[in-house]
């Protein structure tokens, strides 16, 4: 990993956050941020960079889809995963289409599978960010090259 990975978990059930956190802290060195209120998770995203956002589907006031939509607007590179006990095809399709979901995981989840998804999701987000940074460096380099070229042309003509 290029930097310490940051994982955001949103579930109105405290027990899910506690369990996933305990597992990730045992097996990885990821920073885990858990919220039972999606509104607070949105606030967190406004000022903290995360690599992956894992959200429950059925929550009071704000659904998982609504939350992940906000997450996508705030941090488009962060990977989005839905972790849901509500096994319904409709919500899966909606999630995939509307928030360009990376993975849809059903409860009860398998720890090893969840870990793999989270690891791959983090790698994906960090690669995307790196790509974006490299592209912007490239475009800065390109425009400064153009400046040099202009100056050279001026000097010779």
């Amino acid at each position, binding site marked *: 990993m290029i930097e310490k990975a940051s994982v955001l978990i949103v579930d109105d059930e405290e027990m*899910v956050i*506690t369990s996933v956190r305990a597992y990730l802290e*045992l097996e990885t060195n990821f920073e885990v941020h858990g919220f039972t209120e999606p509104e607070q998770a949105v606030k967190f995203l406004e000022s903290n960079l995360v690599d992956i956002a894992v959200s429950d589907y059925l929550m009071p006031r704000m659904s998982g889809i609504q939350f992940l939509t906000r997450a996508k607007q705030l941090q488009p590179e962060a990977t989005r995963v839905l972790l849901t006990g509500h096994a319904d095809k409709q919500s899966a399709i909606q999630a995939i289409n509307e928030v360009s979901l990376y993975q849809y995981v059903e409860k*009860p989840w398998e720890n090893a599978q969840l870990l793999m998804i989270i690891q791959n999701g983090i790698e994906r987000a960090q690669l995307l960010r790196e790509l974006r940074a490299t592209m912007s460096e490239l475009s800065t380099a390109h425009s400064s090259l153009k400046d040099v070229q202009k100056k050279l042309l001026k000097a010779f003509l």
Partner: protein
Amino acid sequence: MSQPSNPPEFANELEELRARADSLATQLAQSYKMASIGRLLAGIVHEINTPIGSILSNNQVLYRSLELVKSALANGDKDSLAKANRLVETCLSLIAIDKIACERISDVVRGLKTFARAESSEVRKADLNQQLQDTLKLTQGEFRQRIKVETDWGQIPQVECHGNMLSQVFLNILVNAGQAIQGEGKITVRTRHEGDSVHISIADTGPGIKPEDRPKIFAGGFTTKAVGVGTGLGLALSKKIVEETHGGSLHFESEIGIGTTFHILVPIEQKKKAEG
């Protein structure tokens, strides 16, 4: 053309038809009961899968942690012992979570069991506050996202009743209330001891029942819901259970734009019915 049947044969036939009608009514009630559970199934599955997910995950973490604790103890140096201590703390918190998760599952199962009991249950003393709480557990998953449930449990005596049948009435009225509320809203469940009855009221903040629909809502087969959502049998059956089976009363008040409140009155003691 056949000869008209003679009186004894006719009586036999009538008896048979009556028995068949009775068994069909029982079957109908049974399938209605199953349909109302079916409507809540997605919510119930959600309610159970979440704690199961936690328990399974915790089990793995506990196992792995204990292995680590074991090797830390074998090392015995200061750092290892500190690490073992931290792991034990994590284990303790996960065990506490597992207890809550197991209780959550057994709550839902207890709610389901109330319905699964045999139809021809005996009259028994029941705590209706408890039964309402068990029934609310079943709707929790369905309501979670948009409906706030407020409860006001009165000091009520135990009631002689067919508990499973009354739970079916409660579930039916709660599900109706939930379906009536479009978007977000509130359901208020209240119980009171009133004279020789227990009074249960279930109020929703839905749009209210249209005046022209009000006289029809207890009629079997009447529904304002879409195909596949309502059977039009729930309230007819509920009225029958409360009034004919228990000698109580089921009525409602409704105001457009404000909501609807159903009142269920159940006598505390069942009069011994004369066998007819």
